[in-house]
């Protein structure tokens, strides 16, 4: 069924598509475009230095109802997490990504945090993850799936805390794709997250926390670690 349809569809498309040159040059053009993966116009707004990008990211993320805290070093992260949870009156039980990048944060400095690792369970209220990149252009987090970064941590809890380092900040989406290509693998999921979950489906009024987290808190670590 599918094979017959496949052949019929492709045959029809090949016969109808209007393009320059012959079959061979068309194949070459397709191959070349994919190989080169050229960029389109990149908005000028993110052509900034590292400091500028951090500020742009914070501004953009805040504009879409994420909250942003800035700390000087990885060591300051646990206290920043604890402060945030206290300020929002949230439980201090966390599900954390088993991400080695989070290891250098000295979590033992915040003993009130009750940390379990792994993928998210339905009952988890707060999760903490790292990020593959921060995209300053729109205040967006790029998170990729992997054994150290299960996707459910991004979607199941009410509150999602993301630790984002200065070294992970880029200006535009295309810069992030370049970084991903360097790793040599395409993960099952690439999530671009821009602010918390929201819906305006009931009488056009916007409310956060439709199905995904209603709180997205980003801890920006200024050091270049």
């Amino acid at each position, binding site marked *: 069924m599918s094979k017959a349809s496949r052949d019929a569809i492709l045959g029809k498309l090949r016969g109808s*598509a209007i393009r320059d040159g012959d079959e061979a040059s068309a194949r070459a*053009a397709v191959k070349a475009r994919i190989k080169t993966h050229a960029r389109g116009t990149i908005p000028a707004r993110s052509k900034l230095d590292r400091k500028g990008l951090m500020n742009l990211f914070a501004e*953009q993320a805040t504009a879409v109802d994420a909250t942003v805290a800035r700390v000087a070093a990885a060591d300051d992260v646990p206290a920043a997490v604890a402060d945030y949870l206290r300020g929002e009156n949230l439980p201090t039980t966390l599900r954390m990504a088993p991400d080695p990048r989070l290891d250098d944060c000295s979590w033992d400095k915040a003993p009130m945090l009750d940390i379990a690792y792994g993928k*998210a369970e339905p009952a988890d209220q707060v999760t903490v993850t790292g990020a593959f990149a921060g995209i300053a252009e729109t205040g967006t987090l790029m998170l990729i799936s992997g054994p150290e970064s299960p996707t*459910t941590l991004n*979607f199941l809890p009410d509150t999602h805390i993301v630790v984002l380092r200065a070294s992970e900040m880029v200006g535009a989406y295309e810069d992030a794709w370049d970084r991903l290509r360097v790793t040599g693998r*395409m993960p099952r999921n690439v999530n671009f*997250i821009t602010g918390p979950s929201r819906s305006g489906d009931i009488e056009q009024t916007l409310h956060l926390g439709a199905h995904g987290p209603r709180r997205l808190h980003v801890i920006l670590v200024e050091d270049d670690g």
Partner: protein
Amino acid sequence: MSVHEPTSHNFPENARKALGNKTLQRGLASAKVGFRIRRSEAAARLPEFETLRDESRDIKNHTLAHIDLYLEEFEKRVVERGGHVHWAADAAEARETVLTICRAAGAKTVTKGKSMISEEMGLNAFLEENGIEPVETDLGEYIIQLRGETPSHIIAPAFHVLKEEVIETFREKHTHLNPDRVIEEARELQDEARQVLRERFLGADVGITGANFLIAETGSTVIVTNEGNGDLTQTLPRVHIVLASLEKIVPTLEDASTILRLLARSATGQEYSSYTTFSTGPRRGEDLDGPHEFHVVLLDNGRTDLIGTEMQDVLRCIRCGACMNHCPVYGAIGGHAYGWVYPGPIGAVLSPSLIGVEEAHHLPAASTFCGRCEAVCPMRIPLPKLMRHLREREFERGIPPATVRWGLAAWAWLARRPTIYHLAMRLPIRLMALLGGRKGRFRSLPLAGGWTSQRDLPAPQGPTFQAMWNARGGRREASK
């Protein structure tokens, strides 16, 4: 509710009902204003917006010219990752394919992200007939599913439903919840939906999403949501099925990123949606979560007939909804009046292209060609021109009523013969001016019922310009 039987042939009656529907009119009034302002502001905040429109159009044009090759590439990559690609010639084949996958997975419940292709396929009713329960998870889609309705807008499917109606529906359908609970505000309704649907997400055997884009380079599918429902739909169950029509394909990640800069801005005025997700194959060996199976169902259903034709440009559509948000006709009648899956200007072109001009001939005819749709379309689709092509097809097939065709033919016969025209028009125009009398207008006039049912018809002044120009010996030729 049965498979989406089109009611487009009934458009004038549908429109009449919609115009008289006060609830709908209220929803339309607020929805359209909001969308327009927000899109305008978002476009103004991005200096590169117009350039990106040109580039996005060019990306899609290149892709459509090589669509067979890009689809083959996409398929190779999906299979490399351990996914499956199924090709479906039409809606029936697509439905069977989905059913087969669901049966193999022993599925009882299926969660769904928003997918216009699944509407086009009539999937939900089919699954129900076959003992599988589909659960819409996009809040707007969920609401209309509970109400047994169809979406009236491609981005905000339930904008025609008032808050009071949502309350009524939740009370009626969420029977397992405490009947004394307070649900009055939108916030409370959303929280209740979140709570109810969370259980469905966790219990689903199969998750079905659409795709805004298919990426040839990596074999990825892309969804764009604000709620996160698409992500819970595809991550939690064992099986993830992606439904996509052929033209969703783009070459590279960069190409998708270029176009994505326009999508949310054109749809809701956001710079980016809350969740834009690229999915590539099933879970990897070391992953802790994610589906075990990844299936992409590629649907033709008439698209191959558009490639290489004067209608091809319509396949650049990225489903942002900007055209309908700015259309004065859609703004007066809403989405249901169009009678099939796609409303507004895009529907006026796509519906007749997919289900035929005989069924959907009213849709491209019911336009003033004001051009606003084309002005705001991020992909620069020349919607009025495409509607005109469909009108030409209708004219060739004799679809407009005989009176209209004869009237046009008579007018054209005269218009091609200026001397006869100028003479012939003098008397009827003079007569009309006299009949218009002191008032200078007609409340009613034979043969002009369509006009005078809504407004008076101003009377002519009396003499024609050509006659007046003759009378004063006006210049008829250039002096050089």
